[in-house]
């Protein structure tokens, strides 16, 4: 055979390999093909192609493997079991940027499914190679490497610590400053994943100077970037007061409040999460947020959003009100109670209602003024109903009961307490009656109102064990009134009167 004929055989083989790997990569983009591919044993066929001489085939094989591993964790496990990872890690250091991108994609796809797989990726020594990729010039390579590191760090504190120990954080902070938008997004998301696990990790991220750069990007027009930035800042500030103070010192308020009106709802949610994490630590931080007008913005946000998105806003109001009665009054004055009432009424999910009940309890428990403001919004019957409904979760029950107790212990606004006399169970009724017994002895007008509205009648109908606190309260109330009236309203009085009529002998 001539030389050319020999070479032609090799060329045909190369063409065939190229076509195979390109087709497999294309087929792997559609989920319905992947089962078939898996059954056909595509993994074992792709593995040797990773070591092919032709770079294009290598890259496309890596891309196909990445897409397959991305789909579900069985395939990712197969990638791990097939000993492909060490080869990929080795070539990450050597090859050109397209291969690096594809290899980082495979690592990311494997690591995203579960902590064990991520640990397997780390055990292959992928971290050092990925960190080296972060120093490349090409933004696409950096983006893939940062994405992979983010997915690894997401699973747990040990993995995040491993990522930090590999020295990724300063490079990620450098990536955040790059002009490329998608790279910024991914770097911000990776920083957020690292710092969410523990205060030490968050401190490491802060020490690398991340806060200043993240704070600069708060006003960027891109919505997805803002999501990640706010998520990162929230994860940093949630761990301790110092971190929250450092985030606040970056002068994000009041610019952050504009993002509460962003068209994208996850930007709004993450922004509200950030404000919540800052507000929950100390009264001073909450005061800062209140003075910047944050409470009004959050109240508007809670009023405009629906569903899970408004949960951080609801919790933020509760945290702010919990610190001091000054701040609780500030929340009331900013129309927070009405909004929380609407949340309690309209939301169907239990955990959001529980959060709203908790927040209302924190607002109302400080003083009679606060309790009055809460009670006037007609909140107490709703809380009672939430407590008594048979199908609610335990969390909602406990929270609404506690909220009711807190508010009732300070409420002296009797018109709001009267509807509770009818429906409340014994343990709540005790507090309601206690409040009546505190107010009625001193206020003649309220005594009159109490009688005319039928409250006294209901009090008489309550059956209490003698010697219990409830009986004492009922006694106190009864002593405020003349005996005839008490007897008139006590149950069975008409029967005893009729009996007397029966036994009465008319005087002739």
């Amino acid at each position, binding site marked *: 055979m001539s030389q050319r004929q020999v070479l032609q055989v090799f060329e045909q083989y190369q063409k065939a390999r190229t076509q195979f790997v390109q087709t497999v990569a294309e087929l792997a983009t559609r989920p319905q093909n992947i089962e078939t591919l898996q059954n056909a044993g595509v993994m074992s066929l792709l593995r040797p192609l990773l070591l092919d001489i032709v770079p294009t085939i290598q890259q496309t094989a890596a891309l196909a493997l990445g897409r397959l591993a991305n789909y579900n964790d069985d395939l990712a496990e197969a990638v791990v079991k097939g000993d492909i990872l060490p080869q990929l890690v080795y070539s990450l250091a050597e090859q050109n940027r397209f291969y690096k991108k594809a290899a980082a994609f495979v690592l990311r796809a494997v690591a995203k499914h579960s902590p064990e797989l991520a640990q397997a990726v780390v055990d292959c020594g992928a971290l050092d190679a990925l960190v080296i990729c972060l120093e490349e010039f090409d933004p696409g390579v950096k983006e893939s490497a940062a994405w992979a590191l983010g997915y690894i760090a997401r699973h747990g504190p040990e993995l995040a610590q491993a990522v930090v120990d590999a020295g990724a954080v300063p490079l990620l902070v450098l990536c955040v400053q790059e002009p490329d938008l998608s790279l910024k997004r991914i770097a911000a998301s990776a920083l957020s994943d690292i710092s969410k696990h523990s205060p030490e990790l968050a401190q490491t991220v802060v020490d690398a100077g991340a806060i200043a750069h993240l704070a600069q990007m708060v006003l960027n027009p891109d919505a997805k970037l803002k999501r990640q930035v706010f998520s990162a800042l929230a994860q940093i500030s949630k761990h301790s007061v110092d971190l929250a103070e450092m985030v606040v010192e970056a002068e994000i308020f*009041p610019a952050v409040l504009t993002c509460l009106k962003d*068209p994208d709802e996850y930007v709004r949610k993450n922004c509200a999460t950030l404000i919540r994490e800052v507000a929950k630590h100390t009264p001073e931080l909450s005061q800062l947020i209140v003075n910047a007008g944050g409470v009004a913005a959050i109240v*508007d946000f809670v009023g405009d959003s629906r569903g899970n998105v408004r949960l951080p806003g609801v919790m933020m109001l509760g945290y702010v009100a919990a610190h001091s009665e000054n701040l609780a009054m500030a929340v009331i004055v900013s129309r927070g109670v009405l909004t929380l009432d609407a949340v309690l009424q309209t939301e169907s999910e239990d955990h959001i209602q529980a959060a709203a009940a908790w927040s209302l309890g924190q607002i109302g428990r400080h003083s009679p003024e606060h309790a009055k403001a809460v009670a006037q919004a007609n909140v107490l019957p709703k809380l009672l109903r939430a407590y008594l409904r048979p199908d609610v979760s335990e969390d909602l029950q406990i929270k609404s009961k506690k909220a009711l107790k807190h508010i009732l212990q300070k409420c002296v606004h009797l018109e709001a307490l009267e509807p509770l006399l009818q429906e409340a169970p014994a343990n709540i009724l005790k507090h309601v009656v206690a409040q009546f017994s505190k107010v009625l002895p001193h206020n003649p007008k309220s005594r009159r109102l109490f009688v005319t509205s039928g409250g006294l009648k209901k009090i008489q109908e309550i059956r209490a064990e003698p010697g219990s606190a409830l009986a004492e309260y009922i006694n106190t109330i009864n002593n405020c009134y003349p005996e005839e009236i008490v007897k008139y309203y006590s149950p069975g009085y008409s029967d005893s009167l009729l009996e007397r009529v029966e036994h009465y002998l008319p005087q002739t």
Partner: protein
Amino acid sequence: MATLHKLLKEVDSIVKEIYDQQLEAEVHRKEEYDAAVRIQSWYRGIRTRSLVKNLNRCAIRIQRHYRGFMGRRRIRAILIDSVKRMCLDHYNKQAAQIQKMWRGFYVRKYVFDYYSRKKYLESLVAKNEMIRSELAEQEEAMRREARKREEEETRRRLRAWAERHHYLVSTVVQPSVFNSPYRPFTLPEETLLLNTRPKTPPKVASVGHGFDPSWRQYGQNQLMVRLPSKLPPLPAKPQGPFRQPEEVRAQRYREFQPSLRVATDYEAVKRAREQWRAEEWAGRLYDDEFKPTKALREKAYQPLMHTASEYGHLAYGNAHFREVQPERHVTQDRFRTIVPPVPVFDKLNAEYVEGYVEN
């Protein structure tokens, strides 16, 4: 004696008078006695009364003085007491004022300040309103921008579609799909197509031949191929006078006759030099340079310090005239002469252009 006589004469009458008088007196003795007693009692009464009155007056006087003295003493005591009480009241009030102010201050500073809290809550409400309105404005602005971008995007897409599908426009002869005769109205796509300029397909840049100056019939080949056998008819308006068409054609398709300068390559001299140098080198037998004297042959060549200096060869015509190499300067400051300022230069600077004369 005479007197005695007279008296003895009258004794009888006198004795009678005495007896008469005595008798009268005896008659009137009771009356007179009563009257005397009455007068005496009246007089005694007067005297006694006046004595008693005097005594009374004296007693009263004494009592008055005494009572005044005691009363004044008591009054004085009461006065002292009341003055003391007034002073104490005053001090108490002042002390209460101090305590009032101190307690108010202390409570407002360390415990709770009602008015400042009220003011704070009012200002908080005002600030909230301000923030709400600002945020609403910004939200409106963002929405407007998003809407504008969306509109721009749709407009761009429509324009791109129209540019690519311009062939769908209707002609006089053949109405298009959007201008169907079976429909009473034309669709808006028709107007869109009419209003946009069609996009011509991108011209594939042909790899032209490099400029070859020796090609005498430059351009003639391409044009001659496309030249129609018959030219299009002339318009009715008379134009002329005309030259002969052969003349015109000869002029129009005249062959390119570049001058020698144009035809020569820009780097022809350099290439010619190099070619000559190469030829010379190839034909050279001895590479050693010819040195006329023995001294030159044996001694090593010592270049001039002038040219061998590290500060560069300052010969005329280096890379370019007026070449400066600022990185070799000792300092980047400009060289200044220390001369006293000349006022004429300032005037010239002001009259001509600032910096025209540099001092």
